[in-house]
């Protein structure tokens, strides 16, 4: 294991500390918590957006805290949902009186912990609603859509919901926007290598030097197809094909695209993938309204990428294009 870390058990905490030290213009760390909140939190009268999950996916989630994005974010240990108590405390710190919208990837551990925090908040009369992000096409068939896990599509859902909250929508309104974004987003990942968990020093799965796995999850959950690594255009072709088979986008519609790196894949490869995606979408008659290429939701030092596509209507487009600023994402 070759990592620039100190204590392998302190990676999550020291990551958040470093983030908060690096970007004080956007956010601050809460005392004694592995959590950050908008520098100006709580924003009175605004629905507060709280995101979170296990660490190891940086910049997701904490890097997307700021104006027009999440109000706060709680990080658990590597690949481990944070416990209820810090979720609860962070929610309290960002609550501006208009309720809390919890946004996180649909994983059993996150559901259990966030639900319990929601209970604690509910007991105090704080209005809470939840949208579990489930963009990963590879993780369940269409008829079990709600069982799917969340991957880089988290970004689109948080962006859209936060923009709606920024417009001073009430909790129902912000929740509806998040749900619409989630309903409209599909993702597909491909892994070339396993990541190495700092605390164990080991890879989490084996993959030969010649192979890739399409559909691999952000924590190494097995995917839908393992086989020889193909040229980028073919990899993108297979991924986009599976996404479009699942996403009911019709020719003439607009979409947003995110080509996301998993941590160890350099930007040049992501641009080569985007080049292919762009052509494939044009061939499908879809027009790309806005595209993003970079590391948004990583899996430690895994090599590979994911492609996320969000189908846009005029509301989603407005919310996606709304300004935002945070350590990992700025839009004017």
């Amino acid at each position, binding site marked *: 294991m070759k990592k620039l870390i100190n204590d392998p058990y302190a990676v999550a905490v020291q990551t958040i500390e470093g983030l908060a030290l690096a970007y004080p213009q956007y956010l601050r760390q809460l005392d004694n918590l592995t959590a950050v909140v908008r520098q100006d939190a709580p924003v009175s009268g605004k629905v507060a957006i709280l995101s979170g999950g296990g660490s190891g996916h940086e910049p997701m989630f904490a890097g997307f805290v700021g104006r027009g994005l999440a109000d706060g974010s709680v990080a658990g240990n590597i690949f481990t949902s944070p416990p209820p*108590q810090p979720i609860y405390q962070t929610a309290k710190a960002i609550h501006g009186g208009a309720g809390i919208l919890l946004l996180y990837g649909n994983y059993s551990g996150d559901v259990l912990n966030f639900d319990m925090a929601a209970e604690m908040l509910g007991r105090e009369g704080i209005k809470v609603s939840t949208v579990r992000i489930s963009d990963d096409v590879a993780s369940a068939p269409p008829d079990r859509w709600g069982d799917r896990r969340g991957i880089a599509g988290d970004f689109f859902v948080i962006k859209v919901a936060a923009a709606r909250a920024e417009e001073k929508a009430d909790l129902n309104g912000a929740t509806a926007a998040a749900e619409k974004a989630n309903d409209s987003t599909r993702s597909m990942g491909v892994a070339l290598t396993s990541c190495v968990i700092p605390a164990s020093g080991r890879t989490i799965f084996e993959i030969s030097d010649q192979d890739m796995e399409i559909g691999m999850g952000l924590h190494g959950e097995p995917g839908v197809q393992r086989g020889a690594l193909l040229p980028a255009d073919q990899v993108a072709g297979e991924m986009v094909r599976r996404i479009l088979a699942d996403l009911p986008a019709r020719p003439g519609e607009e979409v947003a695209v995110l080509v996301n790196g998993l941590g160890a894949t350099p930007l040049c490869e992501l641009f080569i993938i985007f080049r292919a995606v762009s052509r494939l979408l044009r061939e499908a008659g879809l027009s790309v309204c806005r595209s993003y290429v970079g590391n948004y939701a990583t899996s430690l030092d895994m090599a590979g990428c994911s492609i996320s596509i969000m189908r846009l209507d005029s509301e989603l487009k407005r919310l996606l294009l709304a300004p935002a600023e945070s350590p990992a994402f700025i839009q004017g």
Partner: protein
Amino acid sequence: MPKLNITPPDLRRILCFVAEAIGKEEAYLNSLDGAIGDGDHGITMRVGFEAVKAKVGALDASVTIDGVLTESGAAFMGATGGAIGVLLGRMLMSAGAALQGCKEIGTSELRVLLNSMETAVASAGKAKPGDKTILDAVHAANQAVATTAEADQSLPNMLSRASLAAGTAAQNTAGMRARVGRASRLGDRVLGHPDPGAVSFSIIMRAMAQWLEEN
């Protein structure tokens, strides 16, 4: 001659003993989780039980059984996160609530304890026996003590039956497909791999039974 009751100081020692047993299996539990989940289960279990150990070491001498259980559950849940944090945390806290004011764990308290644990994990996780989760091991342990014949009812004996039943159940999860949790998306690919949470619970039971035999 093994103890017939578990006092609050005993329980505190037992939890420290469990913490050690879990610590030794950290890598094994990680590897089980790596096969069908995200590879962190051993880390989470060790960190959680270290917090439990620290917590029970700091409790007042006057603490009762339910106090130890409730505080341990809160400590575990607060220190870990993940699915297992809530589940095992709730199991311990529910047992505490069910044994309100209890000064010793004897045979009937053990039944209450395991029964409340099964109820807690089932209601929190919404899993059923056979879904390839920790519940399978908890359910088996609970069944084993609930069905112990009158004549065989001693604490060491019942704990040893619970330990055996949990161990067998954990191994049996290898033959199951998962319906909840991370592994639920993997279909047939999880066959042959036991569920890490179930194995953890069997380790806890085994450590408890062993401690009782040795003390």
